[in-house]
């Protein structure tokens, strides 16, 4: 164990003379440093009591002999370790988290309670079907909501997150083409698309080609039409797109793609902007993933889990993955490998071990039931209103590249144009940290230089937005005037800017006792 606190104060830090903010512990009142588990725990300590002794094992040569090196802590130390770590995180519960495209909205706690009900949380995915009717009922009810809200034919519930949903949709397209005896290799994806779109297309074996955009930030329909042909399997279009704009020509795009025998994949990560106002099914979409962790507010949990059900058109539905739930009269039944031959013969197969993200289904369903048809529409409207309010309250101090393209949807996009020499989007982001906000999404979408994508969501009040606008205006002005203090922001966070180059050049990805490095 390291003496004192290796994460904070070390003797050499006082070498240049202690300043009045240095403390012995490295702590600063409520800002508490926390060593690594490996520095405070020991392999002999456990925070779990057992009712019985460990019986002798008879595993012969396979028995573990060498130490594993897993430190333990008592329960009290464990609670403190993680509580102290948690306080070094920003979170929606603390304030505005306007991370564009990620939809960081309030996570209702009722949903947490519901997800922990034993009929959902304490059931095994392979239990006999008659013992899990309640779990199937949740999946089925959620599926009905998604189908109704999108106006699509059916929905595949098993994808584990947005990117996994993209994979599901793209595999449906592959399977449909194969069923037609066609080998089309190209998926067209705009440069503004999220990185998962081209990555998914490639993961499924497609070649990716770019779709040009118009100066106003939308798909260039004429250019798209010119590229369509017998080698094109389809398009992947995000709508509303990542510039925060509704693709006005979506129906015309779909018609053009269908006319040449292709399919339309829609990235529905931004569905939260249009729920109840327009149905993708009316725009000719063949497949679209819905991020339950965005639109329907299942918590993001520091990186996941998510859930990415995919709604499908009648053309693609026959190829949907296994397993899925179907309703027979009053009871529910699973379609899996055994009965697929009869009930779903064209399926492309299984894409995950079990049924998908049940824990997210229960939360999303509780969210939908809470809002209802009326509330969900209000969600979209308030999200769009909040974003437009931000856009128009900031576009005199920050460059809004598509500000003239009409109203934005649920997010407002700015660029770094007009900042002082040497100042970038990163400096604005870090300045926001000092003001007590999580920064917006930065440097995405790639089509805008120094992009700043601000998504307030509907769960923020006007007062919160007004304060944020004030803070961002002041930072924008500082960046335009070249305030050097901004270059070294954040000043008040648990850490100053971190050396990412060092991290990548000499990767230390795992704790090792003694010498630094792994």
């Amino acid at each position, binding site marked *: 164990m390291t003496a004192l606190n290796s994460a904070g104060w070390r003797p050499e830090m006082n070498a240049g003379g202690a300043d009045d903010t240095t403390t012995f512990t490295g702590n600063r009142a409520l800002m508490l440093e926390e060593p690594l588990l490996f520095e405070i725990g020991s392999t002999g300590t456990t925070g779990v009591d057992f009712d019985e002794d460990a019986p002798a094992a008879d595993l012969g040569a396979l028995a573990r002999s060498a130490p594993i090196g897993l430190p333990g802590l008592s329960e009290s130390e464990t609670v403190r370790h993680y509580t102290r770590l948690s306080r070094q995180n920003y979170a929606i519960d603390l304030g505005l988290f306007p991370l564009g495209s990620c939809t960081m909205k309030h996570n209702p706690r009722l949903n947490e309670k519901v997800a922990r009900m034993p009929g959902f949380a304490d059931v095994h995915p392979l239990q006999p079907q008659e013992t899990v009717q309640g779990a199937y009922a949740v999946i089925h009810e959620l599926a009905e909501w998604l189908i109704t809200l999108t106006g699509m034919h059916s929905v595949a519930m098993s994808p584990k997150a947005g990117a996994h949903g993209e994979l599901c949709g793209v595999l449906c397209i592959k399977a449909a083409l194969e069923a037609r005896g066609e080998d089309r290799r190209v998926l067209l994806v705009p440069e503004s698309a999220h990185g998962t779109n081209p990555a998914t297309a490639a993961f499924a074996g497609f070649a990716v080609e770019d779709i040009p955009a118009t100066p106003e930030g939308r798909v260039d329909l004429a250019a798209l039409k010119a590229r369509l042909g017998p080698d094109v399997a389809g398009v992947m279009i995000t709508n509303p797109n990542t510039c925060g704009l509704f693709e006005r020509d979506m129906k015309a795009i779909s018609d053009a793609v269908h006319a040449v025998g292709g399919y339309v994949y829609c990235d529905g990560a931004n569905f939260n902007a249009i729920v109840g106002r327009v149905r993708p099914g009316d725009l000719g979409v063949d497949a679209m993933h819905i991020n339950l962790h965005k639109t329907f507010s299942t918590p993001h949990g520091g990186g996941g889990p998510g859930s990415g059900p995919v709604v499908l058109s009648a053309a693609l539905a026959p190829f949907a993955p296994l397993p899925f739930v179907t309703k027979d009269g009053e009871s529910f039944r699973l379609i899996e490998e055994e009965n697929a031959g009869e009930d779903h013969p064209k399926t*492309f*197969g299984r894409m995950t071990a079990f049924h998908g993200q049940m824990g997210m289904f229960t939360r999303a369903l509780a969210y939908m039931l809470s809002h209802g048809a009326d509330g969900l529409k209000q969600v979209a409207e308030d999200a769009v209103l909040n974003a437009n309010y931000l856009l128009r309250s900031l576009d005199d101090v920050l460059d809004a590249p598509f500000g003239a393209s009409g109203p934005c949807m649920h997010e407002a996009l700015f660029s770094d144009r007009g900042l002082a020499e040497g100042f970038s989007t990163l400096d604005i982001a870090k300045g926001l940290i000092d003001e007590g906000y999580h920064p917006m999404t930065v440097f995405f979408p790639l089509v805008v230089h120094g992009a700043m994508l601000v998504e307030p969501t509907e769960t923020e009040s006007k007062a919160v937005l007004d304060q944020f606008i004030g803070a961002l205006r002041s930072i924008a002005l500082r960046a335009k005037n070249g305030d050097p203090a901004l270059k070294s922001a954040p000043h008040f966070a648990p*850490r100053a800017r971190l050396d990412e180059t060092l991290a990548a050049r000499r990767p230390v990805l795992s704790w090792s006792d003694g010498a630094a490095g792994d």
Partner: protein
Amino acid sequence: MRYLPLTPDDRAAMLAAVSASSIDDLFVDVPAAARLSGPIEGLPAHASELAVERHMAALSRQSHAAGDGPFFLGAGAYRHHVPASVDHLIQRGEFLTAYTPYQPEIAQGTLQMLFEFQSQVARLLGTDVANASMYDGSTACWEAIVMARRVTRRSKALLSTGLHPHYRSVARTMAKYTGDSLVDGDPSLEAGTDWAALAAAVDKETSCVVVQYPDILGRIDDMRALAAACQAAGALLVAVVTEPVALGLIQSPGEMGADIVVGEGQSIGVGLQFGGPYVGLFACKSKYVRQMPGRLCGETVDANGKRGFVLTLSTREQHIRREKATSNICTNSGLCALAFSIHMTLLGEAGLRRLAAINHGRAKAAAAELAKVPGVSVLNRGFFNEFTLLLPVEARPVIHALAEKGILGGVSLGRLYPDNAGLANGLIVAVTETVTEEDIAAFAAALKEVLA
């Protein structure tokens, strides 16, 4: 609506501020033909917290929860006791309502936790490095096959017959469309995995051999000879662990020479949850780190020289490399990784070893008791906490008959391999520390009755 803070006055003021006469003005880009007017038909209106809770509780009661009676299911998802503090800590808003730590200065909590998680996973699996999680074991398994293809520039993967059939299905689905070739098959109840044949099948086209440990039938075998055969042929050995608690008692795949070790981390900290969300574990030798999928957290220093953590080696990932990325994964299983890490911290090495030993002892006791039922025998020679019973009749109807008696008696091979009549009498039984002696006695008695 309780989650929406804007008041009607706010909305009016804000519409005026953006020069819109009504909210419809902000949706002008939606073509008129597709615009919806009025509330969505066919869906109910908003509901109170009480009403929603009632509705969901009624649905919850329509399932037989694992805790409602004797419970013996495994086959890739295991019921372990999760200490109360785990669920409390993962519900701290600072963990629950944060996202991928893109801004490290205000995400050190998540980042340090991920660094600790990666370190725990690497040690448990016996490898150098682990990533910050995948969706689940089955998707991690396919990602390992893809990674082996990248590393070896070969595209034939040999899947051991002991691999979970759903993991194999996922690989088959993907391989159908990526052009990878898979050599696979069903396990046999008459003989163990033919390790010599598997090793002999590794050739110059083989990218990897995928083996599960313990395997789908609960068998545990030494994979050292196979690792050597892979190495000799320039192929990678991929080991899949669906029950990581086992590694408290048996040697890790990494120690036995596996190049990539993937797994399902659900059994530590996460709970059954009807199949998800779970947490995919992904670990490998450090020489392959730049070919790994998913997020990686690494140590660095900040501008003041203080230690800190960041997401690193991102040039592998979709947001930088797009179609050239090692994987399309973005959102992963962060919160489940946290649950895993907290539970592992509570256990520590001593606790994990003891938990594993208790599981093993309980399973041995159950196997002995169940083998006394007339006509029933245990297939396995060795096992950890899961074994396969051979019944005198098909296992599927037996499972349903047991369920009627309130006993969830395992996973029938007929459910997992519906096309293979030769496996129909097999029943996979898992026994963890949550199973009591009374549960075992009740199971044995009921099985006897059902088979009589």
